[in-house]
């Protein structure tokens, strides 16, 4: 599976004004690639993900998905920032939701969900409801749900945004481990530059108002992907470079009358 976005644009209509959220976005994501998108807040990162997920229609341009296996499973699974889990379903039903929508029989989907629940270390919480879990656990459930759905594209919208530093670190490693095992295409939106550089094969840096792609940066990856950030000096340099770009963008957006 490969995604090709050609001249994507999105306008939002508020009253009689058209507000451009995205403008002329062109990029590709290759099969099994982990691509991170960073940008200042309000640059349309989430809008972009929703367009790729098929929840929003682009105002112009198009997305091509090639290598579609078309066996009835949804093309993409979206992991939300928070509140993505259904509060009225327990962990196992939440994780099995994608399978349920595809009509997988109850027993089979529970079994398959259970495998992933064990992988994320929540085996003893399978029957609990989301409100009984910590934020970190809920995010893990959200990730498991996306993986169980077994779609070829994983879209993540700041999945670790609201977590504390330690939990974030552990979950990133967990995500990389599961990703390496299942080899999916991942499009990962974040405002955390360090996270983007650490996780991505490639980072797309966006500018704001309207959202455009400022720069594409390939990240050199050693064989040990989940080394701590501090042990990878070349990543520090890239982080600094991206920060320079974003600083300019943030300053620009602060000066701009809204």
């Amino acid at each position: 599976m490969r995604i090709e976005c050609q001249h994507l644009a999105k306008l939002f209509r508020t009253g009689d004004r058209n507000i451009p959220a995205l403008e002329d976005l062109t990029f590709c994501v290759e099969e099994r690639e982990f691509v991170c998108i960073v940008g200042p807040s309000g640059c349309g990162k989430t809008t972009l993900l929703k367009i790729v997920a098929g929840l929003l229609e682009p105002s112009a341009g198009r997305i091509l998905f090639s290598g579609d296996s078309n066996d009835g499973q949804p093309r993409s699974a979206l992991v939300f920032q928070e509140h993505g889990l259904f509060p009225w379903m327990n962990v196992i039903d939440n994780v099995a939701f994608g399978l349920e929508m595809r009509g997988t029989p109850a027993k089979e989907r529970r079994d398959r969900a259970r495998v992933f629940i064990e992988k994320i270390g929540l085996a003893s919480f399978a029957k609990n409801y989301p409100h009984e879990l910590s934020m970190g656990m809920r995010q893990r459930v959200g990730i498991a749900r996306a993986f169980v759905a077994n779609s070829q594209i994983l879209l993540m919208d700041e999945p670790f945004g609201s977590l504390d530093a330690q939990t974030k670190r552990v979950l990133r490693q967990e995500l990389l481990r599961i990703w390496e095992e299942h080899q999916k295409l991942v499009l990962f939106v974040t405002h955390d530059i360090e996270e983007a550089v650490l996780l991505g094969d490639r980072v797309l840096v966006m500018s704001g108002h309207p959202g455009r792609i400022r720069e594409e940066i390939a990240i050199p990856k050693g064989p040990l992907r989940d080394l701590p950030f501090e042990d990878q000096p070349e990543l520090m340099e890239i982080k600094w470079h991206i920060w320079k770009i974003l600083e300019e963008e943030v300053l620009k957006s602060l000066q701009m009358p809204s």
Partner: protein
Amino acid sequence: MAYLEDTRRRGTEKLTNAQLKETLYLFGIKPEWWITALIIIAPLMIWEFLARTDRISSLFFPAPSVILLTSIQLITDGKLTIHAGVTLWRVFIGFCLGGISGLILGMAMGWSRSLRIIVDPLIAAAHPVPKIAMLPLIMILFGIGESPKIVVIAVTTFFPMLINTVTGVRQINPIHFEVAKNYGAGLNKIFTRVIIPGSLPLVLTGARLALNMGLLLAIAVELVSAQEGLGAMIWLAWQTLRTEELYVALFVTAALGVIFNFLLQRMTLYLIPWQTEQKI
């Protein structure tokens, strides 16, 4: 040192509090309930004393023991059971008709914006009208007998059910719809897996309000025009100055309200295990 002293003292205080609580936990009853019981029992005893010593008129305030005896007698000769049964039956049928149509229209209005825009002004206009005031008109339309009474109760239960259902559907976080769509849910699945469970807490609150108001209106309608039912019993007791029967009917009505609330709260706990605190 002073700090240590302080914490130690606080520690012992807590212990005595705990001990006190434990002694109050007699027969597995919450200590707070003892206070509730006291608040109910003490005035009754004062009342009994005052009535027996003729300090208050026993014609208007018959002693609680007399009321109790009357109620036992009314139960054994079947009168009370019939009256209460008739009232309950009216509330039940009225709630089934009004509550269920409120639920269905509420779901539809929660889902469809245009339907909401069309129907909302009508609801806003009809909702505040006291439903008992509509009884004569409804009697013109539905004749005398059972149907106008049931219609009034149905109309009464319709509104709280409708309004709570609409709010219940509307307050579902849009993210849940997006997640469902993202995983390929069709309209059917969105309805059964998102809209129904998402609105259920408020729907049940609506049902509770509807039942309470249904009971209220059933009594009111029976006061005005009925031969049977708790309201009719109250009115008849008043006209024939059988005050003990009046009190019996009042207590039974109050008890029905308490039972409705208790049952619905139990149902809520059972149906909504994902909500720790009840939003009621």
